[in-house]
């Protein structure tokens, strides 16, 4: 990490630790507020929305290895605002689009006025029709993460046999949303589209769209992996702290070897996940051949590890952790939902196997 990157990470940690209070998060989540406006503004002011974009586009040009520490912190502090998804996933697709689209949408991503989200890899894909100068997108996208809080949807769509990526302003006529609260304190949505788009909304077509497709979903995996590493670390820290303070049979729970070994196993799983995450980000930044394999491995590892770690955290806390008021169960819920994002684990492993067999 450069000094600049280290400073960004440190200031983020300070801000989230001192300001991102769990109790307030819960009040807003329970009210169904899409985001906390004051936090959102603070995130933007601290430069978190500009990190990955090129200097030409007005960003810092940070690679993934430099940006994932922030995602880990988002996991650790249970940040519910979809800033990093908007910036690192949807933003990466926009940033690989043509000049006109970048100029039109990236400033909004970077100043926080656009919250863009990406759906699960849609099946079937929405269709893109061309009528003269106009584009029409039609389709239905279900369980879109942050689909209720986003202002824009960045989605793949088919025009004939060609893959495209488009950006859809969800305020436009013909964009309908069923919004629901999700168990991780966010707002999801089913989105039905029959929207007329202007030409600048077409971000990519053909081969570049396919490349962007892979890039976007692999970034989504790494972002979720990083969030998972942070969430697991928080769940372990809380568990260690709690078992030290909780006395039963006249001694702290942390003095029982049965529990110590299970906490050691939690740490082992976290460190293994962290190792793969770091390697996958570095490989992605450097564009090495093993980037895809490492990315799939990292996400598959975190899915399994986080399930175990967050379940164990609840078990070792006991009853208190089954309450909505107590923090640790929220890591369990968040990780449960991230497990199917962007695809379920078996599909990732299947893809991992395919790549392995191709390269071996």
């Amino acid at each position, binding site marked *: 990490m450069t000094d600049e990157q280290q400073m960004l990470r440190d200031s983020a940690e300070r801000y989230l630790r001192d300001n991102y209070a769990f109790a307030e998060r819960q009040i807003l989540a329970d009210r169904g507020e899409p985001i906390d406006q004051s936090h959102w503004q603070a995130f933007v002011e601290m430069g978190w929305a500009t990190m990955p974009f090129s200097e030409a586009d007005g960003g810092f040009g940070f690679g993934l290895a430099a940006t994932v520490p922030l995602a880990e912190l988002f996991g650790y502090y249970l940040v519910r605002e979809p800033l990093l998804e908007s910036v690192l996933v949807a933003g990466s697709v926009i940033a690989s689009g043509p000049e006109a689209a970048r100029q039109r949408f990236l400033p909004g991503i970077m100043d926080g006025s656009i919250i863009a989200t990406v759906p699960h890899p849609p099946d079937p894909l929405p269709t893109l029709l061309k009528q003269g100068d106009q584009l029409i997108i039609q389709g239905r996208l279900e369980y879109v993460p942050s689909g209720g809080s986003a202002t824009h949807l960045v989605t793949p769509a088919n025009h004939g046999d060609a893959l495209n990526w488009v950006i859809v302003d969800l305020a436009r006529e013909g964009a309908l949303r069923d919004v629901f609260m999700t168990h991780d304190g966010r707002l999801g949505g089913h989105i039905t589209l029959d929207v007329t788009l202007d030409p600048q909304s077409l971000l990519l077509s053909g081969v570049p769209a396919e490349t962007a497709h892979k890039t976007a979903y692999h970034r989504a995996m790494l972002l979720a992996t990083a969030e998972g590493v942070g969430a697991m670390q928080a769940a372990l820290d809380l568990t260690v702290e709690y078992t030290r303070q909780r006395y039963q049979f006249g001694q702290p729970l942390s003095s029982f070897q049965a529990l*110590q070994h299970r906490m050691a196993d939690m740490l082992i799983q976290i*460190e293994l996940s962290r190792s*793969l995450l770091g390697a996958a980000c570095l490989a992605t930044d450097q564009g090495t051949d093993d980037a895809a394999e490492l990315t799939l491995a990292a996400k598959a*590892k975190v899915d399994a590890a986080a399930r175990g770690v967050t379940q164990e955290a609840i078990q070792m806390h006991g009853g208190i952790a089954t309450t909505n008021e107590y923090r640790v169960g929220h890591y369990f819920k968040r990780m449960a939902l991230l497990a199917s994002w962007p695809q379920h684990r078996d599909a990732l492993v299947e893809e991992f196997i395919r790549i392995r067999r191709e390269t071996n």
Partner: protein
Amino acid sequence: MTDYTTFRNSIRDFLAEALTPDLQRAGALTTSVFSDFDAALRWQKKLHGKGWVAPDWPEEYGGPGWDIQQRYIFQEECKLANAPSLVMMGIQMLGPMLMHYGTEQQKKHYLPRMLSGEDIWCQGYSEPGAGSDLASLKTSAVQDGDDYVVTGTKIWTSMAHHANRIFCLVRTDKTVKPQAGISFLLVDLDTPGITISPIVSLDGQVEQCQVFFDEVRVPVVNLVGNENDGWSVAKFLLEYERGGHNFTIDVKKQLRKIYRQAELAPWGASCRSEDRVFQHRLAEAEIDAMALEQTELRIKGTAEAGGNPGALSSLVKVVGTELGQRLNELSMDLVGPAAGPMCLEALDPTYSGDTAVPEHALTTMAEYINNRAATIYGGTAEIQRSIIAKKVLGL
């Protein structure tokens, strides 16, 4: 900057010439930490000619002066080319310890003999009543003139039946707390009063022994470190036992075997490598192998930067050994009934007759059996978890 590709090629060139088919055979038939003893010794002599016996040693003591990456490459190339494993208790454990705690005289005398293979060392730590609770050991050493008189017994002493020397933890003070009354002694196994009795392992072979000491006279100059300071000496040495190993290399070798076994194991009209259930099980293990590799690289990075990886070495010991055991299970499932026949004679590298099982299944059962010890020796998986709990989590 070092050109690692050139370095790797130079190792390969050396192996192509020096690693003769009989030595390779011994490497391929290795079913535990130890290879056929005679082959290992012959291999050590060849490495000694190049000055490559102890890659981790500083140059002043006869190491080759390689950096961490070069050492890794050397180990990897040797292992994957099926070089026999050297008997490492002297080179890997005692050597670094003597460099740190030994007298000039001890270093000058013992270190060169370790490299040449003139001395083969075994480790006298565990006792029948002192395993994980090592500090409760009872073998006693009582000073009498210029000698200690040693009485007691050591067990799980790997290779004692081939060794000529043993380094021992002995009790020199029974009146203080257990850790404070232990000393570290170097003992010649030819000394009168020593009996070595082999222990047959589950696979039917002998690697372990029990060593009995009946009023054995050991010169006081054979003490390493101060009297009653043996516990800190021993802890230093155990960290070497845990820290110096690259599990990723073992795992890569095991995976290579599994790929081959999966090609040869029938599955309907095809082979198990086409079986999706098997593919998923293997992929899960491969993902953990990648995580282990990246964690070992992190440790290497920390060490290169001069830091202490601390409890991460306990972490990789747990993960590396448990993953190794999982891979043994995959192999067992692939070879199926071919794991049954004992074929002990065929595991001797000089054997050239028929065997009841195909080559690819010859070592599978013995490896599965012997690798149960991996989570027991060098600090059990439970001890490692306790270390992690204490040192990292502060419990």
